[in-house]
């Protein structure tokens, strides 16, 4: 089931399988020929007392077979490696493409780290599965059958012994394997959780230290690792039990074959040559099945990884896929309208947004205010097309947003997220993300507008300063200014800012306000904010409360009517204006 799905998703996987199986089969056939010559030579020398010269032709042929076997071993391994590399890069390619379609809201819910682990290590685990385990499954059916035919030909009774014991092996394997697979699935999950826990602890090390809890984690890590050991050992006891049964079956039936052959040799019912031939082949008969046993849990890891990969690949996009039915680009400077828009996170209780209706006029500034959790950021996600409304529609100049080419649409928006992610690289790298081929002058101008130039220059390496994940040593305000500069640098028709000044000091905010005033001359600005300065000059203010718009209008008008807006503003003025 899983295999077929994988083959459908990744065509190169099939080639890999066919190649390795056919070369493996050739190797099995050569093993039979080798046994034939070996038995022949030993019989001649042992029973007929032929000297070395008498068996030289047979020895020559034996050597040839040995060389051919070596070549077959080389060939199968080489082919497997070449194709496996292609399979892995194909799979990663598919997953990355699909993640783009799933979008950031999917990743936020799942675990970023876990997905990265699946892309890197999970895909790597496919190699042993596809290049070794699956071919071995095929070989463990074909090679023993070939050998069995030859054994029957030489000594039917031994053939019967092998034929009777052989089916027991898959039987036991299926029996034990089912339990082992369930355990192995769990093991993969534990491993992912374990590494997620590790990242979590490392990222929060500072917080843990502040509260004096960082040393406790030593014990927690030891305990979790130990739990992992106990859990894994219990799974391995089962996995190895299958190996034990297999091994017992194979060695015991080799022993039985040897003993029965021996007894019939005494009676003279069997020629030594045939007997020795059968004895050499007995271990070869079981070898592919035994190898399957040893690669069983490696294979199962691959299956589990494959399952996770297919799960991601077949994960439906958050909602209806972006349709992009129109080739006409709507006028960006047209009106942007939300028409009874609602949004519900699948499975997470009540609607985040409901019945949101408003119109943003071009070249105007729209401010969205409201308490934390009122749905302001969801509004931004909708506008960026990360999610699509579960109810209602968003119209851009009369065109349904879902019909607009998404890539083009996002180009029109310069966005500053609430919690900006800084990428590993220099500050310049991070800024130029918005406009990769811009000049340094442009970059610096944008930084200046965001009030970031000064502090960036205060670093000894300036714009070439390396910033680690989440900004490293940058303060919250500095991080925010870099993100703001990034949005300014992009310089699109629409500026979408999610709490742009929440961490800025008065002086910087002053600078930023100036920049914003400049921008709104010829841009549409949508700003989500707590701060009054930012809001009061807006052409229109949306007051959001519990997922919907409760008030709409200009600052002056809103101040006149009793309601949430006046409460917010008065509270702010009171807390900041007292004593002045």
């Amino acid at each position, binding site marked *: 089931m899983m295999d077929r799905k994988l083959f459908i998703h990744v065509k190169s996987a099939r080639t890999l399988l066919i190649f390795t199986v056919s070369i493996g089969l050739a190797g099995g056939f050569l093993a039979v020929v080798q046994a034939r010559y070996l038995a022949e030579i030993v019989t001649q020398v042992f029973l007929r007392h032929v000297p070395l010269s008498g068996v030289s032709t047979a020895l020559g042929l034996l050597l040839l077979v040995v060389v051919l076997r070596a070549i077959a071993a080389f060939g199968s391994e080489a082919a497997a490696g070449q194709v496996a590399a292609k399979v892995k890069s194909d799979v990663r390619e598919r997953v990355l493409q699909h993640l783009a379609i799933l979008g950031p809201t999917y990743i936020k819910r799942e675990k970023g780290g876990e997905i990265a682990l699946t892309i890197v290590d999970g895909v790597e685990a496919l190699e042993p599965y596809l290049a070794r385990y699956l071919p071995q499954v095929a070989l463990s059916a074909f090679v023993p059958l070939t050998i069995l035919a030859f054994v029957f030909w030489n000594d039917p009774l031994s053939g019967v012994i092998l034929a009777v014991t052989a089916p027991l092996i898959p039987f036991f394997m299926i029996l034990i394997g089912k339990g082992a697979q369930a355990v192995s699935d769990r093991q993969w999950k534990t491993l992912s959780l374990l590494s997620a826990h590790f990242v979590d602890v490392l990222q929060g090390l500072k917080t843990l230290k502040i509260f004096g809890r960082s040393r406790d984690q030593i014990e927690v890590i030891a305990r979790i690792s130990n739990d992992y050991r106990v859990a894994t050992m219990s799974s391995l006891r089962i996995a190895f039990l299958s190996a034990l049964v297999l091994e017992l079956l194979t060695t015991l039936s080799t022993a039985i074959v040897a003993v029965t052959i021996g007894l019939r040799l005494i009676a003279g019912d069997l020629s030594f040559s045939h007997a020795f031939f059968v004895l050499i082949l007995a271990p070869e008969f079981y070898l592919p099945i035994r190898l399957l046993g040893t690669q069983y849990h490696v294979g199962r890891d691959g299956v589990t990884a494959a399952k996770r990969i297919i799960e991601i690949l077949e994960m439906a996009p958050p909602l209806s896929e972006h349709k992009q039915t129109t080739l006409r680009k709507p006028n960006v400077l047209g009106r942007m309208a939300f028409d009874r828009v609602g949004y519900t996170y699948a499975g997470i209780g009540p609607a985040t947004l409901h019945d949101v209706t408003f119109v943003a006029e071009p070249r105007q500034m729209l401010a969205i205010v409201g308490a934390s*959790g009122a749905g302001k950021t969801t509004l931004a996600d909708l506008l960026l097309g990360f999610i699509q409304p579960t109810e209602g529609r968003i119209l851009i100049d009369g065109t349904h947003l879902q019909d607009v080419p998404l890539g083009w649409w996002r180009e029109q928006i310069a966005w500053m997220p609430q919690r900006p992610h800084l990428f590993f690289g220099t500050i310049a790298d991070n800024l130029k993300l918005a406009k990769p081929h811009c000049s340094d002058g442009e970059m610096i101008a944008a930084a200046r507008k965001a009030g970031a130039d000064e502090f960036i220059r205060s670093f000894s390496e300036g714009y070439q300063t390396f910033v680690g994940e989440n900004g490293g040593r940058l303060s919250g305000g500095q991080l925010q200014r870099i993100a703001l500069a990034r949005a300014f640098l992009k310089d699109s028709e629409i500026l979408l800012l999610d709490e742009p000044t929440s961490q800025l000091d008065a002086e910087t905010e002053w600078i930023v306000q100036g920049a914003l005033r400049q921008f709104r001359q010829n841009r549409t600005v949508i700003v989500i904010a707590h701060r009054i300065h930012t809001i009061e000059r807006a052409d229109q203010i949306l007051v959001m409360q519990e997922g919907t718009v409760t008030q709409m209008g200009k600052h002056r008008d809103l101040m006149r009517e009793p309601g949430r807006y006046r409460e917010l503003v008065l509270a702010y003025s009171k807390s*900041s204006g007292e004593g002045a």
Partner: protein
Amino acid sequence: MRILLRFLRPFTWLVTLSIAAGFFAVAANIGLMATSGYLIAKAALHPETVLLLWVPIVGVRFFGISRAVFRYIERLASHDVTFRILARLRVFAYERLEPLAPARLIAMRTGDLLSTLVSDVDTLQHFFLRIVSPFVVLILSAALSFIIAGQFSLWLGVALVSSLFLAGVVVPGIAFLLGRTSGEVLVNLRSQYYALTLDLTQGMAELLAFGQYEQTTTKLRELQQGISQRQRFMSRLQAVSTGVLVLINHGVMWISLVIAIPLVANGKIPGYDLPVIALTALASFETATSLPQAYQYLGHTLQAFSRIRALVEAKPVVHEQDLALQQGQPHHLQMYNVHFRYESGQPEVLQGLDLDLPFGRHVAIVGESGVGKSTVLQLLLRFFEYEIGSIQLDGKELHAYDASHVRLCFSVVEQAPHVFHATLEDNVRLANRYATEEQWRNALHISAFDEVGSQMIEGYQTLAGEWGARLSGGEAERLAIARALLSDAPIFILDEPTHGLDAITAERVLTGIEEFTRDRSLLLITHRLIGLESMDEIIVLHEGKVAERGTHGELMKSGGRYRTLFERQHMEQRVDEIQTVKTFTSELA
């Protein structure tokens, strides 16, 4: 390698068991094949009675059963050792990393840390199972093969041992050396790939919004090409070495025949030993097949180990001292002329800060972002070491104390608090496991975190997403405040506590905190000039220096920097307020 072997010491018994069982399993296989050969050869000579074959018959059965059992024991023991090593390695790595945080870890990103710790530790855990054990078993079984083959002829013994040496040590050794550089590059590429993937998954929103997603996947594709190319080379190398091993394995059987046949013809060894010799030669190669893998692991292991060593051997920025500090007491905190720079060559962030915080006093440090306000917190928490000046706690130098004791004197609201992948309750209670129900409720109420909890369907048992994704900035901030209140130490230090909070909540929370800390010390670090009227002292920082200090009233009167900042922040509000009041009064009138 020697250091790695030290990780084995606590498990000597298990290690011995595993190696012994591994050797006996190999020996049993040789025994099985040799006795079987002997059995049928003797039988072919038609002995007078079956009883003569009784010993080899029993031997064949014994070896058949014992091999499987030994193999089972070996697998269990060796894997158990492996996981025990893993647990020790993880703890080892964490124990070494913990003192480095946060100062030394800033430069390394978590993706890299993760790849170093998780995957390197995972690599290292196998060093016994895949390196030590196969080598020791190879040596033991080579000795056994020599003894068996030597019975027939010295040359046979020599041929067998030397081919085992060739197949087990020389060929995989050469393959390893040839593949080494590629292997190193490969590991490097993979860790780059991992780090970039992590950037991609965590920063996807930005990448999409800025149209850079394709760019990043292109970069990943390029890395993948490099990885594929190296992996193809490695697999070709492995294919050659596998081919050569098969050649040696079966070739030595052929050589044994060539050596033994003349001896049989001469009558030097009996003919019935010929099948025994051929089968022994084939069976003794079992161990050599696992050695190529052992070499590969050896390479990975040494690399992983050197990386982990580099990581854990970094010197902590802070020198640990062990002067104990009485907990739960009122403390007096003083700073004299403190200067600080993060790295030599960088400008000083603090240039002579004085601060006096006797027990019960409330002090605020204000100034724009980047003036070094938060650095004060970093120094007090002993995350960084100050060099010039003095910070004293109860009259003794701060760096004389045990750092963990120092931290317990403070209740801290940090900037950008980490939200752990755990329930909301566990996230808050992290600060104080023994908090009473009353403390718990009080902390939730003052921080307004109860509003967050009550919004969740599962209340405080709701899991906060991996990176706290389900909590907004303001919600995370309230979580941090609740934590600080719960930890309830004598000195409260709040670093921008109202960040991300709307005006109403910010005001309410700040008032609550000031009330709560009435009989505690409070150090408020902020750029938002609200709630400062009741402060005993306000220190205004500008470019690392103290610009002015005094109470709110004094500073407003003196008309310096504070007043300018304050007015700039509040001017528009005041205008609005006046207007609003006017409107109201006119409405009333």
